[in-house]
């Protein structure tokens, strides 16, 4: 059973992985967005909620598996790698070392996010506001103006899609693929989601856009117009 689907996009051939990461074989480039490391401890700090403190370890373990599987030359963490600025300081030493080991092995790029405007120094890798390769540009949040002829790959929005079928509905993380924009799902273990039918996401996409929903064993493609809105929506800024 294939855990990826291939997408031809702006003259490139991209693989969308069931884990929620994107791989570009031609460039040997792996991209994961919104790791939100240390979201668990951030809740202990700000709200007194003591969630299981294993989310960072789990997120990193999934990254390790992907790196072992695809053997990329370059890994791009597409912003909001930490849930808050103080996150790197709270990171468990062992987990920090595992990240360091990864960033030593490949060309690791921390794209700046809104939660973490600066790259975490002690973890290796290099920081960047955005990175352009061939026809594609990788950045955290969308730019209003699109360069003609190119594609923009972004994180930030944590897209999820709801599908209802025969009386059951599923709400899962997804990729959202528009003509000129490709939104990655949040990769972090505790990262929440925003429905792709919300204006904040829909306004970034054209009407022919599709979503690739992360199922249990494979991905599923749906037209954006066919997935359902949520019944209730906490405001966007509260979800990340």
């Amino acid at each position, binding site marked *: 059973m294939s855990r990826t689907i291939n997408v031809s996009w702006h003259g490139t051939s991209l693989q969308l992985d069931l884990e929620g990461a994107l791989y570009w074989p031609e460039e040997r480039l792996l991209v994961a967005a919104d790791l939100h490391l240390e979201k668990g401890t951030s809740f202990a700090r700000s709200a007194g909620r003591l969630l299981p403190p*294993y989310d960072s370890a789990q997120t990193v373990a999934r990254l390790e598996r992907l790196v072992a599987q695809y053997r990329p030359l370059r890994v791009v963490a597409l912003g909001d790698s930490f849930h808050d600025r103080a996150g790197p300081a709270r990171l468990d030493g062992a987990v920090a070392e595992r990240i360091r080991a990864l960033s030593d092995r490949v060309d690791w790029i921390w794209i700046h996010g809104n939660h973490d405007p600066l790259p975490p120094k002690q973890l290796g890798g290099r920081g960047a506001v955005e990175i352009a390769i061939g026809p594609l540009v990788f950045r955290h949040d969308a730019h209003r103006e699109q360069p003609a002829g190119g594609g923009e790959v972004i994180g930030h929005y944590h897209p999820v899609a709801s599908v209802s079928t025969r009386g059951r509905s599923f709400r899962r993380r997804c990729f959202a693929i528009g003509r000129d924009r490709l939104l990655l799902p949040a990769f972090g273990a505790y990262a929440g989601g925003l429905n792709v039918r919300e204006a904040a996401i829909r306004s970034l996409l054209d009407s022919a856009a599709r979503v690739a929903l992360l199922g249990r064993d494979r991905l599923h493609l749906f037209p954006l117009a066919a997935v359902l809105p949520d019944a209730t929506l906490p405001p966007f800024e509260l979800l990340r």
Partner: protein
Amino acid sequence: MDLIATTSLLPPRFAAWFHGRGWQVHDHQLAVLSAVQAGRSLLLIAPTGGGKTLAGFLPSLVELADADPKAKRTGIHTLYISPLKALTVDVARNLETPIAEMGLPIESETRTGDTPQNRRQRQRKHPPHILLTTPESLALLLSYSEAPEYFASLKTVIIDELHAIADTKRGQLLTLGLARLARLAPQCRFLGLSATVAAPERVAQHLNYGARPLDIIRGRDGAQPEIGILIPEARVPWSGRMALHAVPAIYDEIKRHKTTLVFVNTRAQAELVFQGLWRLNDDNLAIGLHHGSLAVEQRRKIEAAMARGALRAVVATSSLDLGIDWGDIDLVIQVGAPKGASRLLQRIGRANHRLDEPSRALLVPANRFEVLECKAAIEAALEKDLDEYPPRPYCLDVLAQHILCLACAGSVDPDALYLEVTSAAAYAALPREEFDRVFAFVRDGGYALKAYDRWKRLRQMPPENGKPGGWRAANMTVVRQYRMNVGTIVEAPMLKVRLGRGQALGEVEEWFVQGLLPGDTFMFAGRLLRFEGIREMSVVCSLAKSGEPKVPVYGGGRLPLTSGLADRVRAILEDRRQQTDLPHDVQEWLRLQRWRSVVPTRSRLLIESFPRGNKEFLVAYCFEGRIAHQTLGMLLTRRMERAGLKPLGFVATDYVLATWALGAPTQEQVERLLAEDMLGDDLEEWLEDSSMLRRSFRNVAVIAGLIERRHPGEEKNRRQITFNADLIYDVLRKHEPDHILLRATRQDAAWNLADVQRLGDFLKRVRGRIDLRRLDRVTPLAVPVLVTLGSEQVGNEAMDALLEQAAADLIAEATSGEPGQEAML
């Protein structure tokens, strides 16, 4: 009891009052009075209408009759706890009569979630003699630092409808609260009031704290009820649960009686029946509606109108099952089969609250199987053959909430608390190790990875007399969180339903709204509403002019058929002599079944196999109740998958399980499929996979205080985030599978699968007794379940298949004849 004993027990003022009302003092009322005066705790078992509530309050009224109204009080004398807010209000109203008529200097007040903040504060500063409240409000009271003083003088606790909460999480939270009260007020006597139950000793245990002697007092049984089955125009539908065909007949009965209570099984059914009645209501009879989703004010209005005798009928769900005393109801109609004998008796008991006159009730079966079930339920009710439920094992999430409650009130010493907690019957078997782990969870999360030393929720007090200090809530955030999330009822998130910008009509579950598109219509609060959209956490609607409603099908309220009734139904099917009084439709249905196939018997399991469309159907006549059938369906389809039969889905009713697949099994295959080992690895594996554990985890996490309860409309203001419990579950399961919350989750799921035990008994019983009948077409008995088909699906594991199907359908629809579709894939 003779007259002299009566007079000596009952002060003259009270004797005169009884006399003046034309009432006889019941023996059990005097027995309660004398036991309580002797310092004993007790369980009073009496049918409704037996003056049970008055019996409970009598000792307190007598003790307080000579109280000095001006004396300064710091605490309350009597605490009354009922599972229903509505009941609290009603009892408070009824209590005013004796207090006023005897001129007793007694203050009694209610305190529930609906009590305004300023009144709660006044009650804390100036406690009434008698406080009427709910289990949640008691927990809140116990979380205040002045609780010891408030309850120090407590003499009596009355717990109403104890049978209804004994084996629930709410009941467990309550008993932990009672254990605390017993410690704060060692002199306190516990009085439980209960309807007739199958195992009174077990219910009574929940009143037993410390060494106080405990009595069980039984009131006199009332007159045998008169129960009939209502079959309008001698027609019974094949299937369905709503019984709308009977609405005209129900209307006629309402017209013929003074006041009728119309009980239904679900809120959706309540809406439909109510609307149906009003469509016929040319006489403009005052017919009301009462169910748990309606706005509080709405419900109070109905209750008050009912108490005034201003209504001719009320259509109600279980929201009115319990003891509200209306006296004048002369008919109870149960629409749809009652699913259990105890429930039927409870509901019938609502009619005619005079002991010596029989209650009158009519059962309205919604379909042919329900005719059999109604007949079985009447037999069981008349024989007082009550349903027995297994005791619920202690719940660790409830314990966690209770520990936090006490830590909000003051310093908690784990050793002392362990003794206190295990004095509650439900927690008697709790090992110290589990207690300590729950305590650690409350303190710092209790994780193997010590990540939260800096953010502990409990902080330790300095040592005292060489003993380590106790623990208390670390800061006000923790206390606030506790109070915002108190209670054990975790419901699906609810949204307010509003007419335009006007007042709220009530609430519906979020998932229901999710399926609505603007313009869709649905029944709510007795009106046909048109869905306009969601605005600021409200479902905004307008009144719809006409059209077929898209009916809310609420999840709650559907109890499965009890095993006792199921067995009686099988007996009726087997014994043709018992069928002679069945309606003609039903007899004909069974005759056709005998002609085309056979009728199921008590000792064997009939499974029919037949092709239909391009699919192969299996219909198993198990009669084990919907929940057991659902579990069986999940497991059976898994095994069919492995056997290469390519199952596509299943549907479960209370009577039957039907599966459809691409292949049909042989007799040997069926025997193997239904072997007892099904409940071993398959069950285990399915539990791990299914949403059952996830759902349990969400509930456990909220009750234990790991994540916030959702308060619709507050997300915005409080900048609080609804955490996705599924994500937390996945992480915890992977990294610390033995964490105490996961243990609590598995225990919870096992209880929710109580019907697994039933399933085990069933598989054992039918081993070697399975009759597989291969037929060329659907049989009469199989028709009802096939009509329901499509409402249930194979579990989560089929998600990908379903999504694929949905995608295929959508793509086919959206792209028929359009080339270039593959270009993007």
